[in-house]
């Protein structure tokens, strides 16, 4: 019986689950950003190894691409913050 009442409470009082959802969403956003920027770094390092004299160009392009990917990750963060701080 206590298990049933626990399930009832969990399924009707959904506010804490919303907060947990926000936390999980932020974590997944971080994973996405990490994978994306990691692949940019890998590509950049390999190209520098192939042609060391173009370090400057590769570095600027890498930073631009990293900023764009971080922008997308921050979208997800903003959505999670909205979940946490709005009713």
């Amino acid at each position: 019986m206590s298990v049933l009442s626990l399930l009832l409470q969990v399924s009707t009082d959904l506010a804490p689950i919303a907060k947990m959802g926000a936390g999980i969403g932020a974590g997944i956003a971080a994973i996405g950003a990490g994978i994306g920027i990691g692949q940019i770094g890998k590509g950049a390092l390999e190209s520098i190894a192939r042609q060391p004299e173009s370090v400057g160009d590769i570095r600027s392009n890498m930073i631009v691409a990293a900023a764009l990917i971080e922008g997308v990750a921050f979208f997800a963060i903003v959505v999670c913050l909205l979940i946490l701080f709005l009713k």
Partner: protein
Amino acid sequence: MISSFTRIKGFYPTLWLFGILVLCLHFVSAQGENIPASAKDSVVLTGRHASQLEKPFDAGEMIMEHILDSHEWHIANIGHTHISIPLPVILYADGDIHIFSSGRFHHGELAYNGFKLETEGKNKGKIVKVLDDGITPDESAALPTDFSITKNVMSLFISVALLMFLFISIANSYSRRKDHAPKGIQSLLEPIIMFIRDDIARPSIGEKRYGRYMPYLLTIFFFIFLNNLMGLIPFFPGGANLTGNIAVTMVLALFTFIITSFSGNKAYWTHIVNAPGVPWWLKLPVPLMPIVEIVGVITKPFVLMVRLFANMTAGHIILLGFMSLIFIFGNMSIGLGLSVTPVSVGFALFMSLLELLVAFIQAYVFTLLSAIYFGMASEEHAH
């Protein structure tokens, strides 16, 4: 040497601006002594200030207070004395303009002139009208239109004054030292201006047309960069999170959107409404392709806005969070607080250096993407 400064073209107006700013410092008051006896002795203490003396450290509230805008500029808390600059409140309600200092609100404890600063509930942080008893907010009335000079607006004035001083100085230096090598502030800013011209404007917009957009690109780059940097300085006049205010970034993105739309030539609009090479059944009964293209046109400035806002706000939250760690552990035990301090300060130092880099990168990316949008909007048909 002073005479060389007075010969700067915009010197006296900027001196006026600085004079006005100094006059605002006159409003600094030690707020702790100004609370009237009735608010201090009453049994029911409302508002933040009186109850702050007993509350334990609340990290979330401290962080939110630093991120968000406010009607006073908090400088320091020395002991229990709360030092801050109360900024003017300008309200427009029922056809009347009310201007007064926000110190009259006493952090939300007292109502003044029919208005009150809400500290809890759905209108938290906003100014609401009160009913005749002077305490309960008027639920049915609309909020007064708030044109106040808040902390962000004050920081905007300060950074604009600094920008104008810097650039009017070097403009005059350039006109006075026409065939000489650059000297002074010129040498500091010239490489950055050349960088924007040669690595952002020229490749993205093209040799023939980049000159029209250079003033705007220079303005937004230095505006965003300077405000990001000033947000990192912890004491007055820095420390106001201006570029982390979504209204400010929205205005910057709106300017980019307006300039992009006005510089769009026929090829640009044709690509949006009637994209060449797309089969007719995607455009005619239900214009799917135009809808996708219009969503793309709206999304690009929107992303610019959110990217800058989220980067700056997240950076501030992380820095404040590391500093709060010290106090959270300190509340548990003094020993824990002391031992976590070097770790916390080390992380905060590392994050501050990263935030310096992010300040530059965000200004660079905003300017680069704006230049790319201008280039795409005005490029000749070059398939």
